[in-house]
């Protein structure tokens, strides 16, 4: 791979890519963004070369070396660009808590997220309830803090906020309101959305909803 400084391979609707965009922006790192336009049908040679095992975005390429998996990338960014804006909490215990909650959320949303827009009836309802239960657990973790990172916007905030652009989609399919069920969580979402890095990285929720409708059609899911 050529050394073009910092390159990010991504796809506009991926929350995992948004995590990296937010982190790079907060750190003030210049980067070249390459959109995988045809990600469902044919992946670019660069992506296949950079991430041959998973063939997924995001991939960060720094000095010609690829780093895959969004959480790995966030930790890498924080370790390399140390002097600007700290992403990870300082204390090992707080780091551990952030990592724990990210693993928890990622595992949950991988299954539950898809079931909320792709399935129907009881399965969809069960997914919705599981989703809300998870948000309530996160609300407890947030407590009275402005951010999950405390006074500072940090790792767990960056990891979670991109999924807020999918809330409208989940709400439309499952007929519920995140605001009504988890007002504290929405308050945190709104606070994060005030940050330039977040508003730049997150697409319009209506665009995301339209895209999911297209994907359903493409996959033949009613």
């Amino acid at each position, binding site marked *: 791979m050529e050394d073009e400084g910092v390159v990010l391979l991504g796809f506009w609707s991926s929350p995992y890519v948004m995590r990296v965009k937010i982190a790079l922006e907060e750190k003030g790192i210049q980067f070249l963004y390459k959109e995988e336009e045809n990600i469902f049908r044919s992946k670019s040679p660069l992506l296949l070369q950079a991430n041959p*095992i998973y063939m997924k975005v995001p991939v960060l390429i*720094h000095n010609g*070396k690829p*780093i*895959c*998996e969004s*959480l*790995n*990338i966030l*930790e*890498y960014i924080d*370790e*390399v660009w140390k002097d600007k804006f700290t992403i990870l909490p300082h204390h*090992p*215990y707080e*780091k*551990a808590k952030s*990592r*724990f909650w990210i*693993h*928890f959320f990622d595992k949950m949303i991988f299954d539950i997220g898809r079931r909320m827009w792709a399935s129907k009836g009881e399965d969809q309802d069960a997914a919705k309830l599981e989703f809300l239960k998870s948000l309530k*657990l996160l609300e407890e973790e947030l407590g009275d803090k402005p951010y999950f990172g405390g006074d500072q916007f940090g790792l767990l905030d960056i990891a979670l906020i991109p999924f807020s652009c999918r809330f409208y989609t989940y709400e439309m399919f499952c007929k519920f309101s995140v605001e009504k069920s988890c007002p504290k969580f929405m308050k945190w979402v709104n606070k994060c959305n005030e940050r330039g890095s977040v508003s730049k990285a997150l697409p319009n929720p209506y665009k995301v909803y339209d895209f999911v409708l297209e994907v359903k059609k493409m996959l033949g899911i009613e």
Partner: protein
Amino acid sequence: MAEVKLFGNWGSPFSCRIEIALKLKGVEYEFIEEDVYNDNKSPLLLKYNPVHKKIPVLLHNGKPICESVVILEYIDETWEGPSILPKDPYERAMARFWTKFLEEKCFPPMKQASWSTGEEQEKAKEEATELLKILEGTLSGKKFFGGDSIGMVDIVANFIAHWFIILQEITGLELLTHEKFPKLGQWLDDYLSCSIIKETLPPKDKLTASFQARIQAATTSK
């Protein structure tokens, strides 16, 4: 009260990982045996890991840390001694990547190949073989996944070195052999000769007996 406590189970590869790491760092700890396989979890475990209700849980100065890989990173950040993760940010990202690869990609088909039969088993065996080939490739020019000494990936690969090898012996499966995978075979020999590994892995005969009892129970309940 002991400063460091570990909730685990004698037969669990996950709590074994933590014991390896603590011993590498020379940390004294109290091991609290949890009867997890009979679903007989203690109130303390449920208190310290209310979300997953699983072992291992590390308790340090009264604060719980859950999820084995999160605990490994915590141990590396908290105590001096041999490094579990490399110092270089890119090498750290690679170690984290391969750790996740082992856990999420490799172990499931390896377990499936061990416990299933017929077509399901054949499919799992094929998948596991392809993944072992990738792992074999990563050992090029290295004694351990961590380089000259054991690191995070080696610790997490304890499942392969001990649990999987024992399952292979019991079931007659010949997926991972010295002939098919010379580098992995050499890694197995070097890994199992490390004194900390030898003293921490559960006794082979006890684990063999426990697996055989499970196989017996599975076949008689059909």
